[in-house]
């Protein structure tokens, strides 16, 4: 599962491109949860506009659909958060900080950062979903 965590620093025969892709992927991963928040946000804004400005869809339908999407977004973020929590391995090691210059430390650090970003993204999705539930129509 965590193949890049054991990567030696020594340049190896076949390593270059393969390891590069794996590495780059793990930096992208910290942005996944905020990206889910952003997509959710854009959908909220866009669908409400289609309902209130263009009057294509009834607002009650939009509110129901978006609330369902909020739950979906939260589920995806929870899954991302769970994966990054495992990558962080804090529950196993009890180690909160990762300042060491080892691949393992870097790997867990990225897990930690991704986990914290999942938490903040979940809070963001909950905040943005509240108007859907609390505010009536298109006044």
């Amino acid at each position: 599962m965590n193949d890049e965590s054991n990567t030696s620093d020594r340049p190896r025969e076949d390593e270059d491109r393969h390891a590069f892709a794996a590495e780059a992927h793990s930096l992208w991963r910290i942005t996944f949860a905020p990206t889910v928040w952003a997509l959710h946000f854009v959908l909220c804004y866009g669908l409400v506009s289609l309902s209130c400005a263009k009057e294509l869809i009834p607002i009650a339908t939009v509110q129901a659909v978006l609330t369902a999407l909020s739950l979906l977004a939260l589920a995806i973020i929870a899954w991302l958060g769970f994966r990054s929590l495992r990558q962080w391995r804090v529950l196993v090691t009890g180690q909160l900080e990762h300042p060491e210059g080892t691949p393992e430390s870097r790997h867990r650090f990225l897990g930690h950062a991704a986990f914290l970003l999942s938490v903040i993204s979940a809070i963001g999705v909950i905040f943005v979903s509240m108007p859907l539930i609390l505010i009536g129509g298109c006044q």
Partner: protein
Amino acid sequence: MSADKAALPPPDRRPLGPYPPTPEMLAEPVPEALQRAQADRLRAAWRTPKGWRYWTAVNNTEVGKWYCLTALAFMLCAGVMALIIRLQLAVPDNDLVSSDRFSQLFTLHGSAMMFLFAVPMFEAISILLLPGMLGARDMPFPRLSAFGYWCFLIGGTFVLVSILFDIAPRAGWFMYPPLATQDEGPGSDIWLLGLSFIEIASIAAAVELIVGALKCRPPGMRVNMMPLYAWYVLVVGGMILFAFPPLIAGDFLFELERSLDWPFFDPTRGGDPMLWQHLFWIFGHPEVYIVFLPSIAIAAMVIPTVARRPIVGYSWIVLSAVGVGFLSFGLWVHHMFTTGLPSISLGFFSAASQAVVIPTGIQLFAFLATLLVGRVTMNLPMLWIAGALAVFTLGGLTGVMLAIAPFDFQVHDTYFIVAHLHYTLFGGMIFPVIAGVYYFFPFISKKMLSERLGRWSFWLIFTGFNICFLPMHLTGLLGMPRRIYTYPTGLGWDWLNLISTVGAFIIAAGFLVFVWDLLRPKGKQPQPPRNPWQAGTLEWSHDIPEEAWGVRSIPHVTTRYPLWEQPGILERMDAGRYYLPDAEEGRRETLITSVIDARPLQVQRVTGPSWITHVAAAFTGGCFIFPTFGYYWPAVVCGVFAGMAILYWLWTATARPPEAERKDVGLGLSLPTYVSGPDSVGWWAMWITMLGDATAFASIIFGFFFYWTAQDDFPPDGALHAGAGETALAALALAAAWGLVLLARRWNRHGAVTAARLALAGAALTAATGGGALALAVWPLDPTSHVYPAVICAIALWICVHAALAVVMHLYCLAGSFAGKLTPHHDADLCNVALFSHFFVLSSLVACAVIGLAPRLI
């Protein structure tokens, strides 16, 4: 043809030799004589030009200094405008300046502080400091930094000087139409074109800084060990790429309306002023954080030093920076709460505005925690940081109030807003930046600033600031609107305004002290110690007296605070024990490492002093400045010359096949001198630039769907559509051009040079055909009649300009192939053009679908 048979095996571009270095390798001393010879060669390669040629320098230390000083000068000009504004408002019914002049003053004050000071200052400081923090010799594209600086200088001077001729922009710093579009005189054009020019410089700086932070770190500095400043630079660079392009797209539409009367924002012909507000604030709100984050990053560098311990909660601060970066894009409508959007929509933006407080607060708590657990020495930089935290927290609290839409309805466009934004900007930008100036001054100019003058300046600015802006909260609550040039007596505003004016002059006195301290001659001052604050990060390995080489040798880093935690690193760096201690070929070089783990990958040749950046910047300036006064042909000529200058610069100085395929970089490691594709910095720069370009394009497409959403009849019944056949032909031809570029890359790499050349020529031909077909498709439309044909034509224009660029790129590669610059094993140019083509084909197909299909379907 002989070139076809020259399919030699590709050169080995893997790093060879031991890495990471063992303690024994590092312990081995370098002979004295060798050290001296190496240092001499390095010094010669990096020597700063003397005399009038000094201005050709491209080294980050020189360009960074000019950039900072220019931004400071622009800030002082904008400050003087603020003083005139305050003088005018000091007493009721004042007639010091006219209403018109007052409008010019506040417009230019806001625009200059934002576009000519706050954002460029981030770029300036980062260009100056980032290579030092990363132990790099220079940024990867020094001439790009220099080009960006000269653009900034020309554009900024042009915009500011307009006020002396009484033709300055006067519609407020956010230029709302229809006021700004219908304004007589060149003011709005000066704002648009002058600032567009500077936005391009900002994107150039963002490209430079992102690639610098990702690819120019010292070996071993993994992402979990980057100085926090580099994390912030990365986040802010990314934000610039998504925030500035919507404004550039908005400027593009705005200028088409101003000069060609295409009615994007004119409601009488189907346009909508709200689109400008959306595009402006999609830029404008993230911009606040683009200004705030790098300044607070300075605090993240100062605080560990004064607390004498590593930062507490490194990952939390990274979370905070990345989280703020994302959330800040969901706030833009809180500047538009009173525009009548549905209340659910207001709720989304209100909620996101509250949510952004959480990550922002986390980083402040991390700083406080670091100070609490450390042994704090209250030095001058820390005093300014403390002031910043206090002022910013107050601004943040009023921000939370304003995020609540009903409260915002009450105080919208009053002095309460003025107070709030100045609290956030002084606390979030001015104070931390001045802290940074005091902290980094010994690094920048190898002298110290005065402790006594610094304290005077701090207390003057801090008290003056609060005297000026604290009463404004009340003035605003009492109902005084922004941007009024005078007011009658008896509304309860008189005393409050007078107090604010006194405060403004106290701030000015503080700035005078600060600027005097900064600029006063310091020739007699003894040299400061090398690391006066006993900091732990790499920039404090700088040389005193100054050396232009950045670092004597590029260290292997295994900790977050190498100077604290890696004993002996400084001596080894000085002795040239680490990487690239020499410049045998007399060329400027720096080390390129991998993105995550910073494993050494390549030796990058960086460019040296040149006039070509000035030539390119001057012609680019002409291209933007002439249209302001309606001179379109000179602008076109300038544009062509600017293009030629840039091509000359690229041709002579970038991606040339090296004289040797690899070189020894020290400690037994041998690295390639040429790479192409994702390993090369040029590929990353193209990727990042195209991301920004795609965002701008997406903003124009957003405009199309915005009109469709906001209007009942878009496209209007019976409107003439773009030709279906021509649009389909354009889509096919542009897709074919993309396919041919990919084939050219593949064939070239396999040694089939003739086939590759034919494919490139074909690509140029098909791209030109595609652009031409799209132009023909929209030719019968009349863009001045209604916004529907206008937006279709704007999209087509965007694609045509890119098709022309694509043709130039294909021909450039073709010429490179004939000239031996582009060979089967040296195909960086072609890889970059292929990357451009990926983005271009995607945007072409989207454009053709929106132009040809969407109007017939919706």
